[in-house]
């Protein structure tokens, strides 16, 4: 891909390197669920809904979190890769969501109860995993599940000495960019709860870049956290 990534300090969609795309949040979009949220960031939009806390099938065991990650067939088009249910990438993400949210959900308040998290990607324009994590946090809050803290996520990348946040699809698949460095942090303490990066064969990530890119991603998470909190306060006051 030969597209320009940074042009006079602006990115392809006219953003600055440290600027997020526009975030839109809707709560309670799925009526049949205990809690649901739609998280849109730019053209990426992810729907998450929760069933539970409900009684476990195996009564003697303590409760678990289950995650089901689906991608709508129409979420990406053209030459873009088709995701399917149960491929390696979504399996990995499901397992990660499970362990990640065990750290924030206060399972001891709901003993012997399961929480089912369903994620549906409606449109894919980069940073899907991050949008999914944010959507899950929002839907858990909407369902009234007791949480220790927000879990907010943001992706970041690195291009010619400049860290970028919240990558779009074309940025994250470009060989010139070190991408997608996905970080999820706790909203208040900013401790890293989830981290995932894999090389796509372009430029190599060095420890010095990790330091910059992590700081940038955490900065992005802070912004996302602020927006999410504001939206939730608005939703609750109405």
């Amino acid at each position, binding site marked *: 891909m030969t597209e320009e990534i940074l042009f006079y300090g602006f990115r392809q969609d006219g953003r600055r390197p440290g600027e997020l795309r526009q975030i839109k949040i809707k709560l309670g979009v799925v009526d049949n669920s205990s809690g649901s949220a739609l998280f849109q960031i730019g053209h990426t939009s992810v729907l998450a809904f929760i069933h539970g806390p409900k009684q476990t099938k195996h009564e003697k065991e303590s409760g678990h979190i289950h995650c089901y990650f689906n991608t709508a067939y129409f979420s990406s088009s053209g030459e873009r890769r088709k995701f399917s249910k149960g491929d390696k990438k979504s399996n*990995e993400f499901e*397992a990660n969501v499970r*362990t990640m949210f065990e750290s924030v959900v206060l399972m001891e308040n709901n003993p012997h109860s399961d929480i089912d998290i369903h994620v549906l990607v409606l449109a894919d324009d980069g940073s899907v995993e991050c949008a999914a994590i944010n959507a899950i946090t929002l839907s858990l809050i909407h369902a009234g599940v007791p949480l220790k803290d927000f879990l907010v996520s943001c992706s970041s990348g690195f291009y010619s000495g400049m860290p970028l946040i919240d990558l779009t699809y074309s940025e994250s698949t470009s060989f010139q960019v070190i991408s997608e460095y996905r970080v999820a942090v706790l909203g208040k303490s900013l401790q*890293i709860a989830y981290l995932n990066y894999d*090389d796509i064969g372009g430029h190599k*990530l*060095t420890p010095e870049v*990790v*330091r910059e890119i992590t700081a940038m991603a955490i900065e992005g998470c802070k912004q996302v956290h602020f927006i999410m909190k504001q939206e939730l306060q608005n939703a609750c006051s109405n």
Partner: protein
Amino acid sequence: MEDLSTNERNFILLAIKESKQRLDGRGLYDYRRLSVQFHNKRGSCEVALGDTLVYACVNAFIDKPYADRPHEGFFTFTVNFLPMAHPNFEQILGSTLSNKNRRIRNEISQEIERLLEKTLKRANALNVESLCIYSGKYAWNIQVHLHILSHNGNLLDACTIAALLSLSHTRIPETKILPSGDLQFLPKYKPLSLHFLPICITFGFLSDGIIILDPLIKEESVLEGRLMISMNIYGDILTLQKTGAACVGASLLMECIEVARLKVKDITKSIRTALEAAKDIEPEQFEINAERADRLVEDLISN
């Protein structure tokens, strides 16, 4: 994997917290001893990381590339669990599995295969395009079979090292395309073009921000989270993955990367000396018959 009693659990945690001692007397940032044994066949080796034992072998044969990717070879990993590796593997294996499904796909094997794919294939340690011989017609199919013979913790690291060693020990013959379009093997052997040696280092997180390197199987069941760092000797980070419930600060992450950098240097050195010692083993004779190789793989899977 292993179910610990509350006493055992507390003992492990207390020993680490109070006296920085681990079950086998190591310090927090010590790696277990790595020993490598090659067999008299090219591309097969046994890697022992402490008491964890992994056998790796590489199968290479000629295959037809996929129609949508005519200039890419095949490069796949399979992880096999043997019931003798750990008593709990027997439950995973199940007694009623049919012969065809003997190759179990559970979470652990999936995790290992995914990590190997990320570090070796996606990061271009071995370029799949270099495996192509004749676009759309002939390409090498490289299959790395990993057999876990004994599980005593940290399978991920042991498996990456075993896969790497067997890959860099493999020799494939030079090939020639005849005017008729057929393929001929030449009696000259070449190594696979591995660009670098990616090595995975696993850290375990305990509560209160304590980090241990190379966790044992008993320590794995008290861990709150794990961090996998794949790096090569040049300090390039190929994969970085933090899973589990533990939360860490950014400074702790940098500390882990620094430790990983040092350990990768040591491991790369010992891999290179092991390869140097085993360089005299004769390469296997290749036959043009691709069916034979297919049969071999089938045998291996069904056994």
